[in-house]
């Protein structure tokens, strides 16, 4: 008898626990009587300790202003893709999400109808006028806009990054150096005179300068090719000569021997390395390395779909509050107070305003996106709230940091304006017909890419091997398919 009781009690506990959790599911609440909607926003990046604190402040403001409360969910950098696949495909409750060309793929999600077409909602908003029209153009998939772009640098700018110490010592004319070949005499000088410095320090993430829009790595269209001929990057003359040069440098001892497998070791002294930059990137690199660097662009900056879709916020096609969602995005992208609150945290706690030197203020006068003050982050509390700025919105209405130039965003704007559109800008490749072939490319590139790019192996021998493997994977079919699609696109343009 005793055991029967015990057992049934146990069962009852398990059942009750199940029931309780069933009831524990939260419901959207209406605050202070007025109709406030809660929007759930998925963002990439690690969860921040003070996030709730900051959101409380944000909600105070947005509730008052547009009747919106915000709930932010985050998934880590490495997990975001997988998490969002589940969230999007299972019809979970969400309203906004971060999307881009490299995580939670913008084109694929837009193409399959997961995102809401925003054209009707955004056309009269302030942000639509403010944000560079090329960002909006890039956000179009089959003629419709599915996301609000975060305004930042529009093109990616591969750069040579030199250690300033050696540049000064040997009077290296950095501004005249652009191509890989331009580096040679200086690599030689360093190699001969500085035995404990690696002339060209490369790591496994290095990719040789590529002068084409890699729509589907390694297939794409060369910059400046108005005929829009789809090519395999390894068959272009430029790449062949680049690989030969890399091999030459490697054999001459200019490149560290472990380049194909190394990960960045900051303790190694280097003369030059490659970085993917933006205006004022030297400041960031210098701070990271602990010494000053100077940088020079390798090539003109081109605007491609990949680069202009660096960060967007999309709205769920199933959302109950599309107007509110767009209203919120508009507010974030235009409201100085809200933008900086989301970006840096609470004023007085995470950061403080600081005066701008009169001289600098004067020099920057009349330029766009210049604010009256700079800010200083609180060293103690900044680690409790440090988000990636472009995840939430555009950068141009954020304050600049103390150590940054006041006209930082004006320079960004100039940079964007001077960037050239790649001929393939605006073309989306639907890879469904060739998805099996494309899936095989990754393995081939993993096998040969790094060792070829860093010059660790002889291209005479390995390039044909790579080509053979790519052929076997079906690269010709992919080129053919892409050419077909791009011809259609060109005809309808």
């Amino acid at each position, binding site marked *: *008898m005793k*055991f*029967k009781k*015990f*057992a049934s009690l*146990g069962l009852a506990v*398990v059942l009750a*626990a*199940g029931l309780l*959790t*069933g009831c*524990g*599911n939260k419901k959207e609440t209406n605050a202070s009587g007025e109709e406030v909607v809660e929007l759930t926003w998925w963002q990439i*990046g*690690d*969860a921040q*300790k003070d*996030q709730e604190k900051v959101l409380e402040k944000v909600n105070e403001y947005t509730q008052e202003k547009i009747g919106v409360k915000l709930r932010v*969910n985050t*998934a*880590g*950098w*490495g*997990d975001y893709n*997988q*998490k969002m696949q*589940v969230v999007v*495909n*299972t019809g*979970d409750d969400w309203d906004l999400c971060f999307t881009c*060309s*490299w995580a939670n793929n913008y084109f694929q999600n837009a193409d399959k109808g997961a995102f809401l077409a925003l054209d009707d909602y955004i056309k009269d908003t302030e942000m639509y006028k403010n944000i560079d029209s090329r960002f909006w153009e890039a956000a179009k998939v089959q003629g419709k806009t599915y996301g609000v772009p975060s305004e930042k640098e529009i093109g*990616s700018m591969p750069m040579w990054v030199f250690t300033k110490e050696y540049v000064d010592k040997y009077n290296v004319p950095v501004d005249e150096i652009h191509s890989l070949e331009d580096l040679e005499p200086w690599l030689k000088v360093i190699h001969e005179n500085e035995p404990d410095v690696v002339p060209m320090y490369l790591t496994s*993430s290095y*990719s040789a300068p590529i002068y084409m829009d890699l729509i589907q790595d390694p297939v794409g269209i060369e910059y400046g090719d108005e005929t829009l001929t789809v090519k395999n990057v390894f068959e272009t003359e430029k790449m062949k000569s680049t690989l030969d040069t890399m091999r030459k440098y490697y054999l001459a001892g200019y490149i560290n021997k472990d380049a194909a497998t190394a*990960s960045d070791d*900051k*303790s190694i002294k280097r003369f030059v390395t490659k*970085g*993917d*930059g*933006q205006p004022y*990137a030297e400041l*960031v*690199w210098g701070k*990271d390395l602990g010494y000053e660097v100077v940088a020079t662009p390798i090539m003109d900056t081109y605007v491609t779909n990949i680069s202009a879709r660096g960060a967007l916020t999309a709205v769920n096609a199933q959302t109950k509050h599309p107007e509110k969602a767009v209203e919120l995005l508009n507010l974030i992208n235009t409201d100085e107070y809200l933008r900086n609150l989301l970006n840096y945290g609470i004023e007085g706690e995470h950061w403080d305003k600081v005066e701008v030197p009169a001289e600098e203020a004067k020099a920057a006068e009349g330029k766009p996106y210049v604010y009256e003050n700079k800010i200083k982050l609180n060293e103690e509390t900044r*680690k409790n709230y*440090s988000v*990636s*700025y*472009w995840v939430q919105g555009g950068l141009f209405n954020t304050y600049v940091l103390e150590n940054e130039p006041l006209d930082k965003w004006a320079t960004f704007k100039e940079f964007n304006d001077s960037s050239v559109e790649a001929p393939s800008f605006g073309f989306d490749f639907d890879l469904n017909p060739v998805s099996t072939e494309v899936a095989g490319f990754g393995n081939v590139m993993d096998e040969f890419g790094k060792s070829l790019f860093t010059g660790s192996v002889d291209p005479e021998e390995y390039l044909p091997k790579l080509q053979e493997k790519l052929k076997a994977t079906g690269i010709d079919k992919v080129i053919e398919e892409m050419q077909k699609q791009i011809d259609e696109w060109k005809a309808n343009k």
Partner: protein
Amino acid sequence: MSEKTMSKRKMEKRIRAIEEEGCKYNQIKKPTNVLFNIFLAILSLICVIPFIFVIIISITDEESLTMNGYRFIPEKLSLYAYEYIVSAGENILRSYGVTILVTIIGTLIGLLLTGTYAYTLSRKNYAYRKFFTTVITIPMLFSGGMIANYLIVTKVMMLKDTIWALVLPLCLNSFNIIVLRTFFKTSIPDAVVESAKIDGASEWRLFFQIVIPMALPGLATIGLFLTLGYWNDWFNAMMYMDNKDLIPLQYLLIQIESSIDWLANNKATMGVDGIAVAANMPKETIKMAIVVISTLPIIFAYPFFQRYFVNGLTVGAVKE
């Protein structure tokens, strides 16, 4: 009296003699023994050294780590990483609590469910034995897939963001049930069950007072599997947990690791922004310290369960 002890002593002596005799033939040659010992020592060193290395790195000074790289004898020692975890790592300690709680609750519920299910299947006179065996065999071969699982847990069971989302999905496992069923079948003689019934035991008493004590080694094995499974689980947390306060330790570690990996592999796409993100990542020594504190408790779980790995409990229970 004295005669009795005498004969007892004699008996013992004889038994010892027989045992020694047996040992003589059971022994391996000295050189082989030495070889085996060396071989096993190397094997266990291979297993232990990485962990010792992790401990050493966790107590190395971060600066001397960046200067000299990993070393067995660090230049400068520092307990900074552990201080950081205790003082600033609020979420680390909370996650620690979550992991322990989930492991304990999960192992208990899991043992109860697996034990009852397996026991029922092991009884030959149970009418629906075939049916329920098939029911558990199916998920062993096929899985519903990620999306279906997610829908069941979040939409049907409504477990999202609750601790049960970490507990329930791992409770029952076909493999465990089959292992335990086989164990019950082979180590609980039918005669024991029958005699208990004749003596008037109910099914519940039979299970809790007769079968469980006899099946402790089997249950301990499954208990160990479950404990390890819960302790090391991070996937469920990734799927079902948006609430930062209920994230288990392993997921915290995985998040750090996968973020660092991802940043290293996506330098080109992230560009300058990647550097800013990387600067916020925990330092090497802190990562290692988390590994140490997440591994230690589970090491102690082994001796605990080992106590129950005793064989021959049922020897002599039935005379045939």
